């Protein structure tokens, strides 16, 4: 609240108190130099009566007067009047009973009084002899001594005193102006920073809220996906089962046309089952509760299994398959079923996206897996790299552009929605592959050249020698 108040005050750009904009040290040093130059005492007082600077030297005359009781009383009264004299913003020359005078000059800023300065006591050069009040103030005052001290008082012609005061007023006005400027600038700066901070904090809060909502929605989506796929699978299994029974003639002989239609029903149902299984896998993978049955898996067996599965599809598209296994390739430490799934998904994609007459190469070779991750960040802190198996699936298809490359592992992402219809698939395969590879603590990388083909490189930890 206090801060708000001061910000509001500052926003009207008013100087509230002289002492807020005039540093005491600066005022004092200005007054000191004024005193050194002209020998005139000077005091600066704020509108509220605060003494901001007081530069003077005790005068023998004043000291002498103050030795008498009445003199001291009269002196105190004069000083008191002078201090509080503030007459409607006009310069005032106030006479002391000693014959000296005080010149009171008001200071205002933007049309408001903010304080005043007092020059004196000094004796106007025009005053040759002291007034009778000097020695009559107290019987103890000796006229001769008093006159002697009076002669030693600083003397200035009134027109000069006026000019000097105008000059000092100019200097003090400038100090007030610069001080005010600096005060405004810094207060404004701080208020702006605070305002910016408030704005950002609000924006952050809004972002956080929507992020939490999105996370909740995502969770909801995963649960929904899992439930729906599960519910879809049960009736589908029945459809497939009864179709198989019909095909096998359990319900009577089939005509050629009926058999063909049933074949179509079954192949489409199988396709649907595959999709539903992928969805279920994805749901499980996202929920991070996929159990892996680790064992030492021979890549040769893995690849020969793959060939038998993928060859029919490759033949249909007239795509040649080249399987290469390096003799030195160790066994993989992983889940046989899931590893097959990884390879099958990648090879299936490679065949699907190869053009007629293209070539797909699947390779297995020994490699290394950096314990610190592919970036090598903090490598010094981690154990040395461990042996691994590198599986490469290379196609001669259309390739993927750089901007799309980073998204290929996102669920349901297909670079060109048109290819879904043309080549099939729901965009789940690579997402599942990525999650499975991650589950095996392996790495997957993809490089691609548009028009030349795409290479997926999967690096998986090798099983121990004796496994």
């Amino acid at each position, binding site marked *: 609240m206090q801060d708000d108040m001061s*910000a509001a005050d500052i926003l*009207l750009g008013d100087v509230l108190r002289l002492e807020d904009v005039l540093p005491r040290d600066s005022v004092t040093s200005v007054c000191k130099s004024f005193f050194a130059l002209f020998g005139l005492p000077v005091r600066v007082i704020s509108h509220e009566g605060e003494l901001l600077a007081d530069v003077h030297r005790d005068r023998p005359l004043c000291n002498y007067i103050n030795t008498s009781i009445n003199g001291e009383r009269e002196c105190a009264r004069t000083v008191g009047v002078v201090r509080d004299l503030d007459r409607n913003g006009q310069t005032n020359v106030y006479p002391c009973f000693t014959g000296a005078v005080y010149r009171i000059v008001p200071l205002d800023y*933007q049309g*408001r009084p903010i304080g005043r300065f007092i020059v004196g006591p000094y004796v106007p050069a025009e005053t040759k002899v002291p007034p009778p009040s000097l020695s009559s103030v107290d019987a103890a005052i000796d006229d001769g001594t008093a006159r002697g001290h009076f002669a030693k008082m600083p003397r200035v012609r009134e027109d000069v005193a006026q000019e000097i005061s105008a000059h000092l007023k100019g200097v003090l006005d400038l100090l007030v102006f610069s001080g005010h400027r600096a005060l405004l600038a810094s207060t404004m*700066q701080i208020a702006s920073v605070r305002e910016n901070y408030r704005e950002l904090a609000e924006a952050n809060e809004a972002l956080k809220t929507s992020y939490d909502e999105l996370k909740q929605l995502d969770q909801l989506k995963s649960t929904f996906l899992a439930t729906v796929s599960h519910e879809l699978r049960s009736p589908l299994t029945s459809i497939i089962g009864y179709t198989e029974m019909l095909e096998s003639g359990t319900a009577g002989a089939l005509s050629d046309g009926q058999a063909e239609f049933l074949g179509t029903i079954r192949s489409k149902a199988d396709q649907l089952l595959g999709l539903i299984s992928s969805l279920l896998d994805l749901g499980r993978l996202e929920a991070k509760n996929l159990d892996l049955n680790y064992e030492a898996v021979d890549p040769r067996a893995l690849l020969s299994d793959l060939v038998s599965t993928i060859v029919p599809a490759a033949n249909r598209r007239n795509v040649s398959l080249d399987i290469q296994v390096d003799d030195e390739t160790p066994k993989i430490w992983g889940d046989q079923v899931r590893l097959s799934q990884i390879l099958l998904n990648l090879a299936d994609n490679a065949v699907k996206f190869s053009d007629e007459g293209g070539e797909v190469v699947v390779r297995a070779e020994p490699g290394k897996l950096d314990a610190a991750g592919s970036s090598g960040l903090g490598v010094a802190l981690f154990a040395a790299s461990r042996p691994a198996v590198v599986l490469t699936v290379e196609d001669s298809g259309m390739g993927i552009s750089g901007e799309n490359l980073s998204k290929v592992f996102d669920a349901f992402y297909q670079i060109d929605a048109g290819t879904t219809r043309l080549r099939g698939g729901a965009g789940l395969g690579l997402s599942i592959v990525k999650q499975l590879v991650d589950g095996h603590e392996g790495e997957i990388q993809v490089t691609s050249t548009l028009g030349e083909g795409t290479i997926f490189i999967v690096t998986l930890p090798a099983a121990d020698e004796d496994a």
Partner: protein
Amino acid sequence: MQIDFAAKELTVKLVYYGPALSGKTSNLRAIHWLGTSNACGELMTLETQNDRTLFFDMLPITVNSGSGLKVRLKLFTVPGQVMHNATRRLVLRGTDGVAFIADSQRSEADANREAFLNLKQNLEENGIDPEGIPIVIQFNKRDMDHIRTDEELEVIAQRSREPIYKAVATRGYGVMQTLRGLIREAWGKLEEDHQLEEKFGISPVRFMNEVESKLKHDPGQRER
């Protein structure tokens, strides 16, 4: 507006708003050298190295209404650059009227619109109803090439709710008309909201006469 009953003093806050480099500071500078020196205070500007106004300028003008009421008109400008929005919003707080300085150049039409929307938004965020606050619009830089023509501005003025002024602020043309227009609008609104005539015995006409006489500029620096 701020009333100090004890000092019989009224402070009215007027803000010059607009896109960056549309001439807000030039307006204030012109007011400063066109206005009589005893009415205007010292023009305070805070500028960054590349000559853009970072915070705001301030030009207090004091008008004695004759009935003993002292009116201090405080003119502010805001930094036009987009990044200084927080400062703009702070300066707008408690304003009694806005002079929107638009750039007449055709290429700046978008910047004008954006700045005006920003003004509207910042007024709302300060709890000021943009529909209720007095606003005048000045089309500045009339001496530049590729500007909206006078005929176009004529058409705009006819369907505009806000009074439209034309100016070349760097030469002082149109600056005083804009300021007087803004003061008239602002005072009218203050009169409506606070019945100043009833409370202080100053009619809007008399107040404007007082302003006119205070802001009378040197014959040597005539506006066209």
